[in-house]
């Protein structure tokens, strides 16, 4: 089969794959208003009542929210420094960080995490779960 046939077929496959993937993404969309942490479900207000707030300096300026260090300690994680933490978003985006990074971060009222010294790729928004690994 020559390029004249292969290229259009490949283009059609790409479009079809993207369409099916879009349908899959919408079908598996997570719809919940709570955040899972160490096996328990919390609303954002409960999280703010549970742990203390702090302000950090980021490349986008000062950000205020619940200190992730305090939140993890108060959620009953046995050995925080022995664990890693996968922060999961509603859209299935997730990032895994170690304790050294996590303890510098905050979770704000909108459900977004911020870290002072990491690229924004780690600033997961619309958080639905912090999994302790």
């Amino acid at each position: 089969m020559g390029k004249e046939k292969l290229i259009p077929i490949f283009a059609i496959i790409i479009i079809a794959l993207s369409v099916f993937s879009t349908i899959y993404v919408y079908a598996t969309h997570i719809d919940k208003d709570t955040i899972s942490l160490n096996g328990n479900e919390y609303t954002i207000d409960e999280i703010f009542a549970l742990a203390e707030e702090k302000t950090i300096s980021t490349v986008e300026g000062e950000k205020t929210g619940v200190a992730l260090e305090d939140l993890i300690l108060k959620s009953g994680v046995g050995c925080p420094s022995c664990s890693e933490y996968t922060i999961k978003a509603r859209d299935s985006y997730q990032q895994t960080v170690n304790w050294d990074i996590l303890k510098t971060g905050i979770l704000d009222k909108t459900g977004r995490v911020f870290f002072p010294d990491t690229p924004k790729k780690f600033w997961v928004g619309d958080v639905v779960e912090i999994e302790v690994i």
Partner: protein
Amino acid sequence: MNRMKLFAAILVFGSFWGLSEVLIGSSLHNMGLPSGAIMSGIFALTILVLSRMIFRQTGMQLGIGFIAGALRMFNPFIGCHLCSAIAIVAEGALFELIWYKLSFDSEYLEKPYMQASMGTITAYVLFVGGHIVTQILTPIVAGATFYVQNLIVFMPRIIAGGLLPAITGGVVLPIITLSKNLDITLKDKVYYPTTLGISLICWLLILGNFLLA
């Protein structure tokens, strides 16, 4: 082709791309629009295809990607600047791979449906490939660890995100190829001051944007 002339062209195309990423990409991001998809499907594709069509030099688009990626680092306030810079360089490299054996002089690329197909494939690979490369390299460059499971669970969304660039690419490439027969030649006396002048204006605008932000 004269190496200096080629380098000046890489500089001007890279500067244009960098400027569009910093100003237009950032504005699209602020408006809540899919900036990555629009930038890959329209701006990156236009700059890369146009430069290949005019200069017919392999390797040039990788250089353009490096210049644009470096300039993107000058806008740390919007989006993930490191991720974007890595994605831009990756897009330049991916374009080189896709178009390595292809030429605008080929007879089959004269046909509009072939141009549309190549536009779809190129824009899609630029967006999806650039996204995957940045997911892998950003944690590594930032001194953190890359976790393959984080990429795997996000793959359906990356693939789905490629739909918009694939469609726009299919429209944009045939439009760009309409300019194939335009004869834009500049004499050396004008060529260097023009290309360097345009590049300088792009850098000043990026620097101004950085200082005012």
